[in-house]
């Protein structure tokens, strides 16, 4: 019988694991639009995020997160007819305790 206490533990499968799903999105039209416009919008200074949300009329819209309200002047009011809604969230940080 082997000595259980002294034998090395089985850490097989531990460590860093890459996660690259083939497609992280569904194929909805708005998601396709977001995928096309993501890089351009995120490249605008002060833009932190872009997602699919609801506009004032209750219809789906592109929601653009910005660090301050001044950034809104650099954004279009709509993209291909889809309204752009600005959400002033400030910088986005990982939420470990500061």
């Amino acid at each position: 019988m082997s000595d259980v206490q002294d034998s090395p533990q089985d850490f097989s499968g531990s460590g860093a694991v890459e996660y690259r799903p083939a497609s992280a999105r569904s194929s909805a039209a708005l998601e396709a639009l977001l995928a096309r416009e993501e890089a351009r919008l995120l490249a605008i200074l002060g833009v932190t995020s872009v997602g699919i949300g609801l506009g004032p009329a209750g219809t789906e819209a592109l929601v653009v997160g910005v660090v301050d309200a001044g950034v809104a002047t650099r954004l279009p009011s709509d993209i291909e007819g889809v309204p752009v809604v600005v959400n002033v969230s400030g910088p986005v940080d990982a939420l470990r305790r500061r």
Partner: protein
Amino acid sequence: MPKQPSTTPPVDPGSEDDQTPIGAPATSSGVEDPNAASASLEALQVEADQNAVFAEAGVSSDLLALRDAVEATLLAASGDLSALADAPSTQGVVGVGIGLPDPDSIAFGVGSPGEPTLTLFTESALPREVLLSYLAQSAGTRALSSVPLQQVPVGGVDAYSHRARHRPAPGGVSVGHVNVTAGTLGSRAIGLTAPWNNRHLILSNNHVLANSNAGRVNDSIIQPGSADGGRHPGDQIAVLARWVPINFGGAANIVDAAFGWAWHERIRGSQYYLSGGSPTYYTTGTAPLAASLGMIVGKSGRTTGLTQGRVTQIGVSVNVNYGGGRVALFRNQIAIQSVNANPFSAGGDSGSLIWQWATGVRPVGLLFAGGGNTTFANPIGNVLAALDIRLLP
């Protein structure tokens, strides 16, 4: 030899572990626990690394010696922080560390800004004389008046708190890699494939359990996290086991996730929150639910406790700051805003499990970032798939 859940005897932590609360071995569970000896060896390396960091930061050996003396007193008093309030020798001191002066803390002595400072974590704000008396008792007579000293009241650790020490530790309480301040224990989980399908795991973020890619397999994970007075080895509940690396400044990320391999009797499946000051537990569902716009969700977290929010965006692409100038792009995320005047989350809530506020309490997301009024979460289905686990609430 392949491990069979039904026949393999449990490997319980060795006797050097001073906090195992139950004398009887967990014969009925058959769940495999980490090896205490190897975990401690690894932790010694972590401690050596930490001391090297202290040396580089100009922390004097006197300060380190004082820290060690206080720590020895705390460990001698009890391995169980919740019992310390009853032990007169600790005088309300619940933890010790070395850090930079913190604007939230109460500073004494001659420390100048930026100078390494002995930090005493206390149940409530104590007069300077009491702290000096405590130090003298722990470390003998030294030139105590010259020690840069601060105290950080962390609340009564035997009072009910998300930041307290919990055994067994539920979801919703403070946790972290030894070199991380603190985040939230999201949920108990279990692996889908061997050998991890016979081990109890704790789910949280990479940046909470794996120190944003800097952690190594078998590193110590403590509850509560270091910012809440948790120390290795007395507060260890798990060892770092698996994480999804965060890609900084490159390809988009999907999840900020990791799990630790826990001693099964030190954790529990339920979630914790305070209801009118009383500890209350609930159990989430297991089947992931995709977020949809307008969905009402909740979470229990280390900093803001139980909160309610509404899903305001899905499919979000967001750039997240991880400190030190590191920014990571995340795609296909969930955005949540509070339903009332209180924030849905704040720093320290990272790792919280987000669930649908409805019958079934189905898991929806893993909280990891926030800015202003908006909280961001990874879809829980992606988290579970990435780590090859399921929840074990």
